[in-house]
């Protein structure tokens, strides 16, 4: 709009309109076209970032105030999963990652890596639908809701590290020094999880009943992701970058969780430092998910208010 705005007279005069003069449809040139600009969105997000912390804090407080077990609730889920996996495959051989690592430890590390992603999806999928009251209040970046879930999941995952030390104590197996690389692996997992949550939460606004699918698919995906790399890790664990075949590269990009899980286990339990080849492709895949998820989210954002 380039027209200059004239100041109103002290009391604007009464104007009466005839509805029959209004056309049936607005003229073509003023129709609203939703062209989200990702860079602008990110800038806006940084300006209003405090909302993410406030939302995450709200959810964490509300959640643990409710639960009988309080904060120890955070530890329960990975432990229950560990028991389930042990019952499922504990007696079968062939799930060891070698190096004399107890299977229970490699499972728990896998569950930790998975737990961050799974927790983010579990909470984040319905974060838009569940917060329609807040969305009706004010205009602020809608991605704050799924992002708060990422933060929450990071908090819960951090809590869940404590039982790992108990397991180390029980098995008499110690973590390797290369464990210190773990934050890097988390840093690669974050954009993947975020992109995925953004995508899923935006889709669920369009088709709310898909919410019901999440609790069914999530445990299955957990079992596959946590167990599968256990069996394949020895095949590529020492391969240098240039021998990574294109199938493996494609797999790393499509499912960044697999390489992230592999390198996490190798570093924490076996003592192998970062395998940059795997990590590079995982990071690429992760960023592709983030950009795609964010684009879909911003694209669909236009009807969030009308659908929720």
């Amino acid at each position, binding site marked *: *709009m*380039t027209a*200059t*705005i004239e*100041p*109103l007279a002290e*009391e*604007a*005069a*009464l*104007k*009466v*309109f005839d*509805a029959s003069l*209004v*056309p049936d449809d*607005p*003229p073509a040139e*003023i*129709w*609203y076209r*939703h062209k989200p600009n990702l860079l602008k969105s990110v800038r806006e997000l940084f300006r*209003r970032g*405090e*909302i993410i912390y*406030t*939302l995450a804090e*709200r959810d964490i*407080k*509300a959640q643990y*105030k*409710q639960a009988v077990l309080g904060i120890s609730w955070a530890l329960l889920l990975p432990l229950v999963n560990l028991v389930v996996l042990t019952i499922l495959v504990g007696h079968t051989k062939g799930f060891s990652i070698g190096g004399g690592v107890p299977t229970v430890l490699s499972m728990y590390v896998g569950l930790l890596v998975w737990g961050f992603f799974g927790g983010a999806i579990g909470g984040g999928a319905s974060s838009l639908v569940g917060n329609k*009251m*807040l*969305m*009706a*209040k*004010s*205009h*602020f970046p809608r991605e704050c809701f799924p992002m708060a879930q990422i933060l929450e999941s990071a908090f819960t995952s951090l809590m869940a590290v404590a039982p790992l030390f108990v397991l180390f104590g029980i098995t008499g197996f110690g973590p390797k020094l290369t464990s210190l690389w773990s934050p890097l692996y988390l840093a690669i997992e974050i954009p993947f999880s975020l992109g995925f949550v953004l995508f899923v939460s935006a889709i669920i*606004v*369009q*088709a*709310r*009943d*898909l919410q019901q699918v999440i609790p069914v698919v999530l445990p299955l995906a957990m079992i596959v992701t946590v167990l599968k790399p256990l069996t394949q890790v020895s095949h590529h664990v020492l391969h240098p970058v240039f021998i990574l075949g294109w199938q493996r590269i494609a797999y790393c990009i499509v499912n960044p969780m697999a390489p992230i899980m592999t390198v996490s286990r190798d570093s924490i339990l076996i003592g192998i430092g970062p395998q940059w080849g795997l990590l590079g492709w995982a990071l690429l895949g992760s960023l592709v998910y983030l950009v795609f998820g964010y684009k879909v989210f911003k694209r669909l954002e*236009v009807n969030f*208010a*009308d*659908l*929720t």
Partner: protein
Amino acid sequence: MPTLPNGTVLADHVWKRFRADRSRALFQDQMIRMGRRLKGQRREYRWVLKDVNLHVEPGRTHAIIGVNGSGKSTLLKIICQTTYPTAGRMAAVGRIGALLEVRSGIHPDLSGRQNVYLYGNILGLSRADIAARFDDIVEFAEVGDAIDRQVKFYSTGMAIRLGFSIAAFLEPDILLVDEVLAVGDARFQQKCLERISQVVANGTTLFYVSHDLPTVEAVCDQAMWLADSNVRADGPAREVVALYRQSVEEQAQLTSASDTGIRLLKAEVTGPDGGQVRSGEEVNLRFVVESEEPMFGAFHIGISQGTAQPVFVVRYATSFPEGQFELKCRLQSLPLPKGYYSVWTAMKAPVASEIKTSFPWQPVASFEAFGPIAIKGPSGVMVLSPVFVPADWELS
């Protein structure tokens, strides 16, 4: 685009439509819709706002009035930027505080304190900003120690008070209020009105949606009347409200038929000697009624400003004869200021020991009274219905 000062609201040919089909946001419905689109069927839409133009400067108070479903709330949502217009442009500059639904945004599992911080954050205030206003909010909401209790243990009144206090004390540049003052007790309502005037005096722009016309007149200086998704009138609040009242009246008048054996054939309002109706002077009301049988009943007359709630009521109970008869009522001194008024009547009669309505409460005539203009209360004080009261003053 020129930079607009905070608190400006500018709507430039704003249109909004919704899907006309009642399908839900569910997977199967989406699939059916997609299938229809593949078959080349067009989606049906319904316009809820058509070509709305607004320019409200900071510190103005603007009411939006209209019957239910006329698009008022949708317009507020677009101002609030929680929904996008389908066409046109809406600019609302600065922080926007909205009181759109009672309790909305108040999270039941959190304490009152946490809610204040959450809502403040969403409005765009930092924690330090909120902390500075915190005590005022608690004091105004009259929740006391309960501020650290979970909101789900609040009474409805407490939750509303807290909601209002948060929105009003976080000093938004634009404050949107939708019908919330209808809840809560009278004393708190008055307190809210005072707070609103104070907020407006500090330069906040107010948008007020209500059916409560007296409050609109008390609080707002401008008003927009929406009817059937269209803007019917826009301008000084009192003039727009008057037009709106007139239209409510006219629509009601079309339905004044009765089939209960008694009918009102004619209704007439005249001043002294059949002339103009004037404040403080004699008014004559004349009705011609036709009854199929003699009956004992009470005839009620109410004078109203367009709504079904009259300013006053007079009543006459007697035996009415069979056939056509004329009923005259003389009011010695009309206690109303200048304005348009309507005459509502109803007849109640006992039928077999039960009080039956022989004809319902409905407007049957309207008249214009000439005289002094109604005196407005001090800013923020609502006058329920205007009455004309001659007063003698003396200062010594």
